[in-house]
């Protein structure tokens, strides 16, 4: 195996994107993605069985597209990689079965990698080196986490995460309450631009002292988030308007909701960074393309002396290139492949970077 600049093909299927990406070392060659998002619109959220059915049909065409775009033959590939968790188990199963078959058919080594850590892996592309004292803030429809990354291939620690809904899920639910459609993130972001973020003071979950504690004596959820109470507060507000026969100020509610989400995400993320010696933060996940989240994260990181990196949107959402990028790093670090006997793990912890 070429360990200095390996040509790696990565497969991702943990949620509703079927992704196949190819990297050479830290250089991105291609990033083919097929999304089943349109099929979930009428349900207002990702339906695992529908996503899994779509993965099955998209897998080989997406692989073909990636190979064509990169001008790469399977024979040239040094190694294969696949997301084995965390994620929707039925969806993960399709990618893992396909990746193992690809490994059997080509005889190439296969690396089973952690989806969350792979989100950080994209930060390597086209830079080649991860900064010192690195942290990662991942915000998407499936996750909301703050990680400390000492070594991408072997030492990643979960500092905090949502204890109920993911931030993107909260956006979807609130968009539904406001009649803004799916996916909720872009819809709310758009209409919030015309609203007053201070119009309604929505709650910031897990921000009371009993949850936060102090730096010396941290409370039980110092770096954790909760969005279910916020969603309920928005529903109450809208119901109250309707009960009083007042028109719902949709733009103001959207802006105020977004402000509550972004405020608590960024304040806790920056708190986690400053208290854990993190001086470089990578923002990833689908919600990383939210304009207000980008803006406030940038402002607060700047104020705290933290260097912020936000990869291009196409690499923030789920994709195969991030899987390949992480595996390439694992290979360059000298680690061994996973074999083909592993299973999927829908709740794989971030401390397990690869199997």
């Amino acid at each position, binding site marked *: 195996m070429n360990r200095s600049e390996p040509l790696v093909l990565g497969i991702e299927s943990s949620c509703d994107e079927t992704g196949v990406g190819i990297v050479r070392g830290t250089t991105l060659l291609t990033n083919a993605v097929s999304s089943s998002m349109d099929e979930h619109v009428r349900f207002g959220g990702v339906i695992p069985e529908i996503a*899994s*059915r779509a993965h099955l049909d998209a897998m080989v065409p997406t692989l073909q597209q990636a190979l064509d775009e990169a001008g790469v033959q399977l024979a040239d590939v040094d190694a294969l990689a696949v997301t084995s968790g965390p994620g929707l188990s039925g969806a993960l199963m399709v990618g893992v*079965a396909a990746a193992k078959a690809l490994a059997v058919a080509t005889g190439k080594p296969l690396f089973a990698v952690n989806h969350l850590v792979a989100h950080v892996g994209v930060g390597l592309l086209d830079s080649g080196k991860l900064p010192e004292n690195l942290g990662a803030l991942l915000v998407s429809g499936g996750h909301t986490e703050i990680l400390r990354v000492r070594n991408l291939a072997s030492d990643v620690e979960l500092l905090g995460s949502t204890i109920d809904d993911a931030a993107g899920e909260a956006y979807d639910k609130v968009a539904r309450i406001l009649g803004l459609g799916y996916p909720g993130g872009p819809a709310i972001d758009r209409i919030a631009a015309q609203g007053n973020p201070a119009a309604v003071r929505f709650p910031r979950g897990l921000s009371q002292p009993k949850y936060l504690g102090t730096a010396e004596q941290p409370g039980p959820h110092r770096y954790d988030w909760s969005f279910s109470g916020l969603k309920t507060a928005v529903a109450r507000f809208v119901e109250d308007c309707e009960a009083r026969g007042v028109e719902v100020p949709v733009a103001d509610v959207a802006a105020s909701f977004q402000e509550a989400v972004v405020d608590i995400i960024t304040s806790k993320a920056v708190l986690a960074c400053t208290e854990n010696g993190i001086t470089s933060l990578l923002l990833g996940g689908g919600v990383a393309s939210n304009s207000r989240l980008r803006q406030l994260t940038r402002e607060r990181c700047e104020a705290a002396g933290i260097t912020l990196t936000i990869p291009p949107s196409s690499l923030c959402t789920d994709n195969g290139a991030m899987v390949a990028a992480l595996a390439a790093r694992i290979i360059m670090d000298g680690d061994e492949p996973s074999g083909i006997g592993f299973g999927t793990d829908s709740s794989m912890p971030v401390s397990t970077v690869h199997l």
Partner: protein
Amino acid sequence: MLILSLDTSAAASAGLVRNGVVLQRFASTDTRSHAEVLAPAVEQLLAAAAVRGTELDAIVVGVGPGPFTGLRAGIATARMLSFVWSVPLHGVMSLDAVALDAGHAGGEFAVATDARRKEVYWARYRTESPLPVLVDGPHVGPAEDVPDLPVYGRGAGLYAERLTGSAAATELTPDAAALALVAEHTLARGGTLRPTTPLYLRESDAKVPGPRKKALL
């Protein structure tokens, strides 16, 4: 004709069949670890027979009906192997394997497998040589729906008391080697096989949410 066959509609199985002779076979009893065991099984099967994937004449996969997640593991595997090796790919209805293995003596019979949720996947066949002929199905439903005939397969054993007909060979589940034989007989007679579109028979459980209830009015 050299065929590699896979089926994950119930347990996971794989077979390597040359001109009607089963060279190698693999079968698991577990119905929940298809994605773990199938690829290693394929690798071992080919190695044991000293066959390279590109030497295959066809890959055959059971397209169900079967529980969704497991069923997809076999189809995803078969499609990828076929793509990389450039070997023709065919689907065969998984119950056909049980129908062949049943070896029914004459007349009509039925086949049933476990569909979970207290239901069975079933189909009705007519005995013919060399292959039983599908008369009706596949269907999913309660065991009471299966016609009053001898009913073969694990689904018959699970709900024997609810069948109008009689349960037989209740240990039988779809086996990949039998699927390969079905495919070989069919192709040899100039017949056509199925695409690899899974026979889910059930919709995803997703429900379109209704309009949000207004608080008052």
